[in-house]
């Protein structure tokens, strides 16, 4: 009681409960899968929450600490955890989610091979896995199984394990490199 009176007198006699001030929103614009997006969000909003609130729910929320890789996206072509950046840091950047790699009507070979090899069980890790696999195959077109394991080291699957996922990425690498060979 004493403390309440003291604070009341300090605050020039007005009501002691401070009014809730919503955090200031900042304007953010960037592109997602080639589409320009504008939003407003407080500075503390993570890129993960920003993307999901904008409807890009293919970016999954797993651990929010950079451990599980479910929220893996490409930022200017580089794979990263969307939970480990502030939304405002994405200003002017190009973001690619799993939907930017291939769509239901036009699957990317990585996605096709994930289906063929039964590399999707519950599907929660899949969007992140595929984005990580995309970066891996862009940098290392013909990876060894060890390189595939290292490439998806930041992505957790809690269903069955990784054998089928590794098989799928291996098969996708074969198909992608044979396609490239034909084009030449």
């Amino acid at each position, binding site marked *: 009681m004493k403390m309440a009176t003291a604070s009341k007198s300090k605050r020039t006699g007005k009501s002691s409960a401070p009014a809730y*001030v919503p*955090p*200031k929103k*900042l304007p953010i614009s960037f592109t997602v899968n080639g589409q320009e997006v504008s939003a407003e969000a*407080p*500075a*503390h909003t*993570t890129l993960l929450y920003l993307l999901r609130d904008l409807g890009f729910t293919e970016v999954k929320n797993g651990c*929010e*600490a*950079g*451990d599980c*890789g479910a929220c*893996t996206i490409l930022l200017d072509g*580089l*794979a*990263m*955890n969307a*939970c*480990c*950046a*502030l939304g*405002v*840091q994405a*200003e002017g950047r190009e973001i690619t989610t799993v939907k930017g790699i291939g769509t239901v009507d036009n699957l990317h070979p990585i996605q096709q091979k994930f289906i063929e090899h039964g590399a999707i069980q519950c599907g929660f890790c899949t969007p992140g896995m595929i984005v*990580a696999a995309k*970066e*891996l195959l862009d940098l290392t077109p013909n990876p060894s199984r060890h390189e595939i394991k*290292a*490439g998806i*080291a*930041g*992505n957790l699957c809690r269903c069955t394990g990784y054998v089928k996922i590794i098989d799928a990425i291996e098969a996708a690498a074969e198909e992608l490199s044979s396609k490239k060979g034909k084009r030449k």
Partner: protein
Amino acid sequence: MRGFDFVAPTTISATLKAAKGRNTKFIAGGTNFLPDLRHQHDGPAKLVIDLMRVSALQGISSSKGQIKMGALATMTDFLTNKIILKEAPILAAMSEKFAGPIIRNRATVAGNIIDGGPAADAVPPLLALKAKVRLASEKGRRTVDLDKFLTGYRQTAIRSDELITAVTFPSPGRNHKWGYYKLARRNAMAITVVGVAVVLKVRRKKVEEAGISLGSVTAAPIRCYEAEKILEGNVVNLELAQKAAEACAAVAAPIDDIRASAEYRKLMCEVLPRRLICQALDISQDND
């Protein structure tokens, strides 16, 4: 920490100006910042300054035997940069074991240092390379030896108005020998149980200069000065390597935690340095 302001300057001077006199936090790759924010391990801040657009903090260069890494050099840079691969392959070997590829794309060298953690993986190799930290504030610039910069558990010698601009180290030379080992419970995304880095400059079979350091066994990674002295100036044999390894274990003060016991860590602080020194110098180890 909620409701902070945010700015993303593009120059060091604009960054320092923005940081002056306000309760400020810097963000770069965010791989420590965001988990800290989520787990509320961070203190309050009125302003968060994004460093990712400051081009002067990027890049790795080499001049007159000095390698300079901008504060924003990432762990992925350590794996791909030609200067690093040629001059200090120990940093690439470390980076290969650092978290996972997605984290490595964002985690910066300055971030790993300033986080101040005992298990900061980039720190032991940088200590063994005798790295220095370049700092800037509106009052001026200064350079601090990395081992002096780390003052305790999550504590560094940085002042509140300062920013790490670069990390430098002298090239250990083309014929230097090195070894790195990260002892951990998994191959990736693991927090280090014991980290050991060894950098040896060898001339006519004699170790001219040694850099040996340990991570995860003291409040902050440390250099093992005694062990370095034991090797320096000598043609090293198994006996001397063993003596140096014992000197390493002597400075280790590990704790028990969920990853390993203090007893095991202490033992590994002898086994691993001996193994790395012997492997680096081609000394056969009968019983290892």
